[in-house]
């Protein structure tokens, strides 16, 4: 007789939807999608226990390409929506995804405060240093001397340093990954999901259409030669002195996630109380 209680192991395929990505062929986001589905299989939670929340931009289309619950929200507000979801439904694994423009410019303020609050979310930023969906404007992570018709001679503005900002703002897990390393990236995402609190994973994801020179990234990227630290000062020194192509987990801290009390322990009472307040 077959043992019907044995769970069937989840595979990456269980987390892929039937909707095919419309990204440009060659885009790094294809690899990131593959990494996300592999990471979710590693974590082992079924799709109905996972939500993927995003903002606006090429990479923010990712919820549609997974079989998890998804919310494709407004520009820059993915972290706000995800925070609400996670606080209301702490039983869900909540992934937040988007690009550098969505996360660091339009959603920049939410980014700071999401790090500070330390709600148990995993924030994946597919950083290609450009606004791809709107055809190639400079983003917060664009190099100051990137010359193009929309910003002749470059913007001259210093690039935003997401890892430093995340660390300084209180993110409990900080990592850098590379789209061309889908299996390594999957492991980092899985670590980020398992780590309590706000996990920030910056993924270098080349835009082959507007920044074709980023195809060269694969020749520069290298895995971090050191283990993750829980010492923020040490992590900061590492981030500030590396060449920007070091991939791996930089920081894994010990801060208690918000809210400290598990809301689901008394969620029925809380919902009842909330409903009572709104009764006419």
């Amino acid at each position, binding site marked *: 007789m077959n043992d019907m209680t044995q769970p069937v*192991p989840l595979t990456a395929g269980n987390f892929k939807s039937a909707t095919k990505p419309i990204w*440009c062929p060659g885009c790094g986001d294809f690899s990131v999608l593959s990494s996300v589905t592999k990471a979710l299989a590693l974590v082992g939670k079924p799709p109905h226990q996972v939500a993927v929340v995003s903002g606006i931009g090429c990479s923010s289309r990712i919820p549609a390409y997974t079989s998890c619950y998804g919310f494709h929200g407004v520009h820059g507000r993915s972290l706000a929506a995800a925070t609400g979801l996670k606080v209301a439904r702490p039983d869900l694994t909540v992934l937040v995804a988007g690009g550098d423009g969505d996360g660091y410019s339009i959603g920049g303020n939410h980014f700071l405060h999401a790090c500070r609050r330390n709600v148990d979310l995993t924030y994946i930023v597919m950083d290609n240093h450009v606004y791809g969906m709107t055809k190639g404007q400079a983003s917060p992570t664009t190099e100051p001397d990137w010359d193009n018709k929309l910003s002749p001679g470059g913007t001259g503005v210093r690039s935003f340093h997401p890892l430093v900002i995340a660390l300084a703002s209180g993110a409990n897990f900080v990592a850098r990954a590379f789209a061309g390393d889908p299996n390594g990236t999957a492991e980092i995402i899985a670590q980020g999901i398992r780590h309590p609190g706000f996990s920030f994973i910056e993924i270098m994801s080349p835009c082959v259409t507007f920044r074709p020179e980023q195809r060269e990234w694969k020749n520069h990227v290298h895995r971090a030669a050191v283990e993750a630290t829980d010492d923020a000062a040490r992590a900061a020194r590492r981030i500030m002195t590396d060449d920007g192509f070091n991939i791996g987990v930089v920081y894994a801290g010990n801060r208690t996630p918000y809210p400290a009390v598990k809301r689901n322990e008394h969620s029925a009472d809380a919902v009842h109380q909330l409903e009572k307040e709104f009764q006419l």
Partner: protein
Amino acid sequence: MSQKTHTTKPPQTLEEFMAQALVMEHEAAQRYNDLADAMEMHNNRDVAQMFRTMAGYEAKHAQQIMEEMNWVDVPGVPTGAWPAMEPPESVPHDEVHYLMHPWHALQLALAAEERAREFFDQLALVATTESVRKAALELRDEEAEHVALVQAWIAKTPKPDAQWANDPDPPRYVD
């Protein structure tokens, strides 16, 4: 990230080795299917069909290993099992173009098969057990056959002209 030398620890048992070979074929098939999907979305049907065909071949090779080893599930392989970031037979995501021709797809397939052949060749050199060395040589010879098949296919496929990537309505206007 060079693919040229085998710098990772070689598998110690035949099972470990075959698991590695299986994951390589399995991931290659997945990648070809991803690329086929991307090409279909961009209405490049000839190349989509080419990638789909390649995916079928790789899936067949994976199935053969599963049957040979009596495996039901695809086993995992340890981190760092590959000399580069990805298994050698996977076509890198970033090496495709929305206007590419079947000839380009075959060039990518050829490079993937050559990397696989080189991988098994290097692995046979560093194998510490006879069963692994023998199996690595067998798979190297199989990959060499695939290289020859793809080369023959390329010879029958028209090479695109130098203007193949010209798009009268390009996505980028920022140059």
